[in-house]
């Protein structure tokens, strides 16, 4: 049957098949991978095994201790440092996302020089230092050091120490800039508790916390420390569940977790606090230390205060009841409540209430360690006017972005334009750096040395050591390194002030200095090695070191309502800017993990929004995601609205930290910058920026905005999701 020809055909078929098979094999062959051996391994190098380094988180001023997991010489994961008194093993979203800053694709890889057409070209460190030292040298020689301005943030520790010594020796001006400063709270503490610095609030051991605008779970002061305390406050070992009342015009993260939320009219918190204080005195809650206060003549009646704050009297009285009955009550004040034109007075009133309730010494204790002294609005305006009159030769931006973070109305952007030479020390071309002539690429805080005085230092001076967890990714230097090298090149007084080789040497020297100044005995080297191990130095203070609460202080001043920029007729709404944990004042905007982290209250990702009360929305015919134009006396912007019941009808709330002009692909052009709406209002007492004292008008633009939300329908529809009974 089967002919020879057939056989040939079969064979041919087989041959073809084999060919195909070989080809397939060739195609799906595993790719060759190489295995790069180390040249000289660091002593703690071990492939496939995690190495943990304890260091300091620099994403916000709180100064949490963190533990970084390092694998094959690369930082992989950030956890809280369990042995650190502030973070106690906790880590916030921003802190963990700081890895995105370290590995950010838009991070500067070398010093950059402006090319004159708004762009930047890479340069070498030598070029940079040559030009800079030349300029500074010339100014110094001409005795025109005052024409140099150093702008930096509110952080503490040796890094800042280096900066201030540098500018001191140079005779330059140093401005510590931040939108939300601690100035008013420091003033209040000084007036009512009678000590320098910031109080430390013991939330854990309180049974009642009344917070006037302080979003201590979200963004206020030291969120991790307070969150840890809050955990115990709720379900603590003592088996007692604390009660939390939040008084603020827009529900913050803390407000959302509070047992009761009292939406007080903006700027009236102080009066309410004072009225409550008077009520407590009336109920005989006050102790000996406030005997000299009398009945607080300046205070309003509860009814009056409730009326002014637009809260039902019944609820205020109920609150007063709780306060009077509380064993270990604690009253907090901060955020917008302390950022009106009468912020300091308002916070004093809050402190007074604490004092009447006998909190000082108990739930309110002095925070050991100094607090930053920020530039006031007048200082900033002085800088602006100097620049305007062409008297600013050189501006050194040390890791701050005032052009974005601070209101345009302060005139910093214009000042930077007028300055002869602007040098930005930063890891990104942010809004301010884009106006600079030089951008000196700085390390991530995970690549260099430093330290910070953590706040709140609970009962001891908590200094956290910052050390590199991996070698530098790019050709960068830390701010301290840059300052030290500049000093060395400048020579003279400056070099004498800063004789150290690099950040490591300087940090160590600083610690030695503090060690001596505290008159502590023992082996410093041993102590420092321990600190490197634990990442923190928690020093019990020698006798008399600790600040104490003064036994008697004069009664607090009256707390009149805040004054707002813009007339009520043409600007019917009060703008309530708020700081979120992820973005803060702009630090988080270039971190993709933060951009993709849904906002706790609105579930918005990628971009900013304005929060509007349903009633208001109905009035203006606004729906979720509709675009509106918000106009204030200082400026205008357009942004989509989110409608939710957590905001007063007469208030428009906007998150800060969005709307960057630069700062990398993840931040650039996303959302609108609420700070640009703020008028240059300042506190009548301290001159601190009153960032919550601006009125705005709202105009529907009749189209939809770019609002991206991950959340669908935020009602349980009677489904038992939050527990049996649907109630909680």
């Amino acid at each position, binding site marked *: 049957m089967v002919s020879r020809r057939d056989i040939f055909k079969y064979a041919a078929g087989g041959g073809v098949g084999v060919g195909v098979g070989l080809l397939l094999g060739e195609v799906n062959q595993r790719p060759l991978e190489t295995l790069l051996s180390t040249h000289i391994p660091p002593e703690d190098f071990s492939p496939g095994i995690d190495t943990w380094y304890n260091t300091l988180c620099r994403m916000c001023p709180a100064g949490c201790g963190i533990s970084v997991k390092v694998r094959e010489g690369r930082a*992989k994961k950030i956890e809280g440092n369990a042995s650190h008194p502030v973070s106690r093993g906790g880590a916030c979203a921003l802190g963990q996302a700081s890895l995105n800053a370290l590995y950010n694709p838009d991070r500067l890889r070398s010093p950059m020089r402006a090319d004159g057409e708004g762009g930047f070209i890479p340069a070498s460190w030598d070029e940079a230092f040559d030009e800079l030292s030349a300029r500074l040298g010339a100014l110094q020689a001409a005795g025109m050091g005052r024409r140099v301005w150093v702008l930096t943030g509110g952080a503490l520790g040796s890094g800042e120490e280096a900066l201030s010594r540098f500018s001191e020796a140079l005779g330059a001006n140093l401005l510590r800039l931040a939108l939300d400063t601690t100035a008013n709270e420091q003033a209040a503490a000084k007036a009512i508790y009678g000590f320098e610095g910031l109080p430390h609030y013991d939330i854990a051991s309180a049974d009642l916390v009344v917070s006037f605008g302080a979003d201590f779970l979200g963004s206020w002061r030291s969120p991790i420390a307070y969150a840890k305390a809050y955990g115990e406050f709720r*379900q603590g070992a003592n088996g007692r569940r604390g009660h939390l009342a939040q008084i603020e015009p827009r*529900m913050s993260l803390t407000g959302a977790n509070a047992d009761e939320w009292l939406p007080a009219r903006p700027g009236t918190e102080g009066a309410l606090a004072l009225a409550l204080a008077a009520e407590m005195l009336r109920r005989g809650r006050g102790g000996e230390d406030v005997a000299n206060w009398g009945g607080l003549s300046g205070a309003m009646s509860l009814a009056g205060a409730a009326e002014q704050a637009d809260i039902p009297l019944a609820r205020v009285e109920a609150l007063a009841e709780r306060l009077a009955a509380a064993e270990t009550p604690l009253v907090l004040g901060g955020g917008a409540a302390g950022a009106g034109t009468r912020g300091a007075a308002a916070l004093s009133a809050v402190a007074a209430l604490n004092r009447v309730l006998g909190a000082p010494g108990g739930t309110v204790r002095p925070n050991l360690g100094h607090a930053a002294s920020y530039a006031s609005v007048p200082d900033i305006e002085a800088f602006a006017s100097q620049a305007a009159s062409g008297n600013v030769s050189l501006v050194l931006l040390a890791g701050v972005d005032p052009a974005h973070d601070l209101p345009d109305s302060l005139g910093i952007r214009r000042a930077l334009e007028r300055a002869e030479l602007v040098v930005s020390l930063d890891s990104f071309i942010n809004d301010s750096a884009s106006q600079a002539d030089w951008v000196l690429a700085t390390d991530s805080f995970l690549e260099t040395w430093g330290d910070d005085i953590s706040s709140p230092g609970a009962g001891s001076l908590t200094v956290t050591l910052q050390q590199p967890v991996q070698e530098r990714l790019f050709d960068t230097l830390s701010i301290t390194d840059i300052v030290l090298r500049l000093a060395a090149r400048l020579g003279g007084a400056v070099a004498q002030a800063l004789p150290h080789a690099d950040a490591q040497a300087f940090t160590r020297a600083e610690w030695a200095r503090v060690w001596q100044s505290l008159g502590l005995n023992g082996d410093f080297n041993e102590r420092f090695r321990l600190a490197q191990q634990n990442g923190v130095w928690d020093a019990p203070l020698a006798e008399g070191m600790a600040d104490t609460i003064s036994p008697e202080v004069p009664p607090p001043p009256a707390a009149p309502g805040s004054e707002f920029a813009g007339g009520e007729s043409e600007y019917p709404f009060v703008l309530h800017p708020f700081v979120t944990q992820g973005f803060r004042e702009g630090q988080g905007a270039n971190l993709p993990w*933060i951009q993709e982290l849904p906002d706790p209250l609105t579930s918005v990702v990628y971009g900013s929004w304005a929060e509007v009360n349903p009633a208001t929305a109905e009035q203006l015919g606004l729906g*979720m995601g509709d675009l509106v134009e918000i106009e204030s006396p200082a400026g205008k912007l357009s942004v989509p609205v989110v409608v939710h019941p957590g905001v007063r009808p007469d208030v428009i709330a906007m998150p800060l930290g969005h709307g960057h002009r630069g700062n990398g692909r993840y931040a650039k052009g996303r959302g609108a910058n609420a700070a640009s709406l703020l008028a240059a209002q300042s506190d009548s007492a301290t001159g601190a920026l009153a960032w919550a004292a601006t009125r705005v008008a709202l105009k529907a633009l009749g189209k939809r905005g770019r609002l991206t939300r991950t959340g669908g329908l935020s009602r349980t*529809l009677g489904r038992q999701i939050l*527990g049996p009974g649907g109630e909680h």
Partner: protein
Amino acid sequence: MSKITDTLRQYRADGYFAEFDYHWTMAIDLDQCTGCGACVVACQAENNLPIVGEKRMRQGREMKWLRVERYWEGDYPDARLSFIPILCQQCDKAPCEIACPVFATYHNQDGLNAQVYNRCIGTRTCAVYCPYEVRFFNWFTYTWDEPLEQQLNPDVTVREKGVMEKCTFCVQRINRAKDLARDEGRRVADGEVQPACAQSCPTDAIVFGDRNDTDSAVSRKMRDPRAYEVLKELNTAPSVVYLKNAREPLHAADGGGHHDGANAQAAEPRAAAAEPRMVEAESAVT
């Protein structure tokens, strides 16, 4: 025949997992959870979750193995917000497990609801069957802008397009802990292993441990009277237990009348009617 019916009868009956060496369980105390989202980022960092970008977010294709859901109650000024973190519940009677035609998802001996990425063919049935919607699909092969890829966790596979992925209580950490315990010839101690979310939680709201060990922290939490399971009525026997928020009812003052289940159903759909338009419009923007 009777043999089969017997096996079927006792299949995943209560205590089915007691015989196994571990029964990993998580307890989340809603009274302590503040909804800050630290756990969400921790999860993203630990498990190599991709950065999907704004466009994909708008298309509803986010990749968050762990999300914090928010629910409003009441209206201004008596409004209240509640948070609840939702992650894979590692159900002992998981609807997803029966669905997968190729056993890419199954229940392992530690009570974990396993997901085997390299076995998945992407029918997405498991995700459809999952009532908690905690399974996420790789619609594309996601990439990291250089040098972001240097952060990737070497202990976790980077998933390719067409694969379903989800939380497995950070199984890479569990394996590591079991490995160490084995070196020392002991069981994994309570609190020795923690998923990324639990470790980062600033309020210690998340407790993780072995349910078979009756005096482990998680077992103690489970005995709390506030303990409940989400969507219990579906009989999925989740391994994530929630502790109800201990706040007093929103309307305790006026008797809380209009918030018991029945009326809530009557009342809420209006809210429901209001919002789909929003959802619609949003996706219309894309």
